[in-house]
């Protein structure tokens, strides 16, 4: 059994006589044959629940659900009740009505087996009929709203009459009906003024009825209509089995270069017309299990479940439903040598659904392709300037499809046949699976006898030990010129273009630093600064070479203090700066300020 509303309300004037009928509560059946018994809570409450009071004034008819005044609520009684209302005037009295044979505990008032009754106290005697406006004969201000469970037996769930008013003014003629009530599943009886269901309801057909109730008041010659919303919400039951929205229950999952944990390989969707269980419990009640006994599969694969609410149109209105997304995901990074194909079955089970077809099978056809480590061409040619400083980045090498690889741990190293003219080093950038060539010993470049360098680049996969090799030829160009006296080892220290371009610094390709002009628009990504190489610094990325030494590109790699107008990079470096940004790597500090910074004004002011 359940109440058709979670809250009932009515007005209550002072000194209304004992026996005055107040309102009807209505119960609907969960199964045919149930007979409702109504019980009133022993206490009545006000604003503060702790100050409850024994209920001496109200009674309910156990069978009909008619709530009536057992004893008139006079001024003295009202004062007694107000005294326990935390100092606030008593405006509303709350009662609890329970449903079922044994009286429920007093305080656990939750729908569906308990309903709240709110009586609005009007500290005045009942007005004369003639003074009441038509609306006051028809409806209360609090409005109506009903709850009907789907698939349950039909029944009576409301009675329109405002009992106290009708008790006081019997000769006023009032009638109720639904505005435009064709093909509605509800019937409003002219005589009893009761509203009942013509048949049980199916939420998956329609979950909300926004009806309009029309009340006609006739007083002698005068006739007036009053309208009020009459919303009915249909409550869901898990009566729909899961299904495939597009009929597709199979997806193929091909694993090639993207072999990293977390990679989504395939997606399948399951539709469920029900919206129960709600988001709080859906993960617990909608289970999925991978039907495999191969431990390798459960080690390298997992299924993730994403329930999302969706809706569809039915009978001219939207009905909510659930769309369950299932993703096949790599649970661990796959070695490049791994290659196999198999079909993975996943059992999805709507444990809440009582019925045979509560479970479905998803099929993922998985094929893992082996990938090889290979260099695209067999010789790389690069050149380097004799004046290049240490950590100058000469170029990048990478195996075939290196941009595609994810989750594969490839490292690069150099082998050199001769030991005298060898100036380079190589660093691996894991995320992009590339090797960056850089000057490791600039003194070699300054030796005129060295005109060319030869290396073998070896790329190897750490896990499978697979290797690939290629030849690397570096020509040494330009003439060496010694550097200016007193130059800082970091380009970033320079604050003016002149001093920037007359010195070199770690990472400079041609032996001189380069000045980059900012756009001068407030704190901006393109700030003015002195850099060893415009190609790599500042670019918001403290790359593998730059992170070897803070002197190379502190603009991208600084973690310390940045003073002046700036915005810090997410992990490190200057994302945006105001004016000119220069840095002092020794002090782990950078400054960003307008470059019109003549000498500070102290002297004029403070001598």
């Amino acid at each position, binding site marked *: 059994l359940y109440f058709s509303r*979670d809250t009932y*309300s009515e*007005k209550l004037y002072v000194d209304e006589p004992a026996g005055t009928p107040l309102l009807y509560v209505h119960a609907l059946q969960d199964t045919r044959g149930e007979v409702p018994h109504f019980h009133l809570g022993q206490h009545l*409450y006000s*604003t*503060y*629940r*702790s*100050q*409850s009071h024994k209920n001496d004034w109200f009674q309910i008819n156990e069978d009909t659900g008619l709530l009536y005044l057992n004893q008139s609520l006079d001024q003295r009684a009202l*004062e007694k009740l*107000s*005294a326990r*209302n*935390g*100092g*606030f*005037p008593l*405006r*509303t009295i*709350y009662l*609890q009505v329970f449903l079922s044979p044994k009286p429920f*505990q*007093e*305080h*656990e*008032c*939750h*729908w569906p087996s308990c309903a*709240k009754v709110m009586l*609005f106290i*009007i500290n005045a005697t009942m007005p004369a009929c003639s003074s009441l406006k038509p609306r006051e004969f028809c409806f*209360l*201000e*609090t409005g109506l*709203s009903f*709850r009907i469970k789907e698939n349950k037996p039909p029944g009576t769930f409301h009675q329109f009459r405002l009992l106290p008013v009708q008790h006081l003014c019997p000769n006023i003629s009032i009638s109720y009906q639904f505005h435009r009530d064709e093909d509605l599943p509800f019937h409003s009886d002219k005589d009893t003024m009761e509203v009942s269901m013509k048949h049980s309801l199916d939420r998956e057909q329609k979950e909300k009825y926004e009806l309009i109730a029309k009340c006609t008041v006739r007083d002698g010659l005068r006739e007036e209509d009053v309208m009020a919303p009459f919303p009915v*919400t249909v*409550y*869901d039951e898990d009566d729909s089995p899961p299904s495939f929205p597009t009929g597709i229950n199979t997806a193929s999952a091909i694993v090639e270069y993207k072999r990293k944990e977390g990679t989504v390989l395939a997606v399948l969707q399951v539709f469920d017309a029900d*919206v*129960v*269980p*709600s*988001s*709080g419990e*859906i993960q617990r009640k909608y289970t999925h299990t991978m039907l495999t006994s191969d431990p390798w599969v459960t080690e390298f694969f997992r299924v993730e479940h994403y*329930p*999302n*609410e969706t809706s569809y149109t039915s009978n001219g209105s939207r009905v*909510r439903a659930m769309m369950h997304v299932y993703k096949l995901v790599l649970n661990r990074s796959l070695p490049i040598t791994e290659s196999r194909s198999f079909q993975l079955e996943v059992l999805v089970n709507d444990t809440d659904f009582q019925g045979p077809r509560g479970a479905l099978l998803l099929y993922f056809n998985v094929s893992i392709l082996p990938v090889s480590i290979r260099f695209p061409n067999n010789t790389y040619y690069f050149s380097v300037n004799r004046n290049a400083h240490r950590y100058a980045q000469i170029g990048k090498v990478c195996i075939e499809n290196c941009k595609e690889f994810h989750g594969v741990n490839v490292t690069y190293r150099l082998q050199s046949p001769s030991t005298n003219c060898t100036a380079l080093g190589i660093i691996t950038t894991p995320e992009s699976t590339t090797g960056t060539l850089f000057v490791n010993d600039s003194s070699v470049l300054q030796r005129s006898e060295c005109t060319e360098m030869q290396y073998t680049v070896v790329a190897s996969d750490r896990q499978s030990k697979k290797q690939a090799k290629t030849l690397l030829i570096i020509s040494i160009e330009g003439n060496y010129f010694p550097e200016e006296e007193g130059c800082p080892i970091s380009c970033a220290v320079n604050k003016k273009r002149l001093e920037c371009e007359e010195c070199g610094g770690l990472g400079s390709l041609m032996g001189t630093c380069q000045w980059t002009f900012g756009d001068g628009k407030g704190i901006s990504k393109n700030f003015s600064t002195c850099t060893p190489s415009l190609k790599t610094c500042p670019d918001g990325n403290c790359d593998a070479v730059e992170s070897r030494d803070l002197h190379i590109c502190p603009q991208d790699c600084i973690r310390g203090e940045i003073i002046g107008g700036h*915005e*810090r990079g997410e992990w490190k470096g200057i994302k945006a700066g105001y004016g000119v940004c220069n840095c002092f790597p020794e002090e782990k500090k950078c400054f960003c300020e307008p470059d019109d910074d003549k000498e500070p004004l102290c002297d004029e002011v403070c001598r």
Partner: protein
Amino acid sequence: LLPLLQAGDLSTMDSMATGNCIHARKLCLADPTCSTPFLYLETCFPFMASAPQKPEKQENCREAAQQLKNSSLSNCRCYWRMKNQDACLAIYWTIHSTLGFGDYDLGGSPYKEIVISKPWKFNHLHLDKFESGSQSHDLCLKSITLCTLNDKCSKLRLAYGEVCSVARCQPQKCQEELRVFFEQVADHYANALLFCPCDNGDDVCGARRQNTIAPSCASPMGDLPNCLILWNTCLQDFLCRSRLADFQMYCYHMDPPGTCVERHSGRCLKAYMGLIGTVMTPNYISNVSAEVAVSCSCQGSGNQLEECKHIEESFSRNPCLTKAIETQMEFHRQLLSKSFSTA
């Protein structure tokens, strides 16, 4: 009828010390007929009625609560700026949480607030000195300037501004400092800062108003949680629960329904500001609207869609709250724009 101990019109000051729950607890512990049920009640469920408890335990807890019905504890309250507010609230909910009306009616506010609203005087001329340059009639900017000119307001605002800043956002600390701001700053500064009027279409003013409580840090926008889940999260923290009960009592319970009790509108806004810095922080929905809402949705509510809508609409479609905010904005329009006319 008992005198209405309510906003502003209480002549005698009800001393903070006697009426609060900490004091009531001391009295109770000195009386065995009170201390026994109270100490038992403290073991029930500190502040949450819906904690799954064995039935007989729930029955004994209710019995203990009934026995305290006539004690000083059942009438005690707490005050906004009192010392040990947390301890006071814990005692209040120990008494009141067993008697909820289901999960969505928190039954009265723990706060008794004596609002003594002093007429707000500020130095128009001093303010105009800074506004003279700018032609903008952005009254929200003006209320920020007013705050900056006031030592305490400026200090409290900078305190939350720093931990809510983009480069150093710590959501927990940001929420905490926001609460401190709205608890300790004088009401009229808080009101001016939060309920400043913007001309239609002035989205700069609207954006300033919407961001003044640093939503991007205090309540980072992931996908919106379900309002029911947000509500239950709030109930688990007794400060949030207290502010929610306060809001429900002064902004939502229309006694009788359909009417906004005029005298409550100032108190309703205080309850609204009390929620700022909790998980149920309300804010303006956009930079061109004065409508407010809590950031949650009713997706995935199942059969509790009505309860979810009820929570959502107690902020976004609440006539009493909307009216109180509009009244406050109109008040500030006249107060703050007076200086423009005299400039």
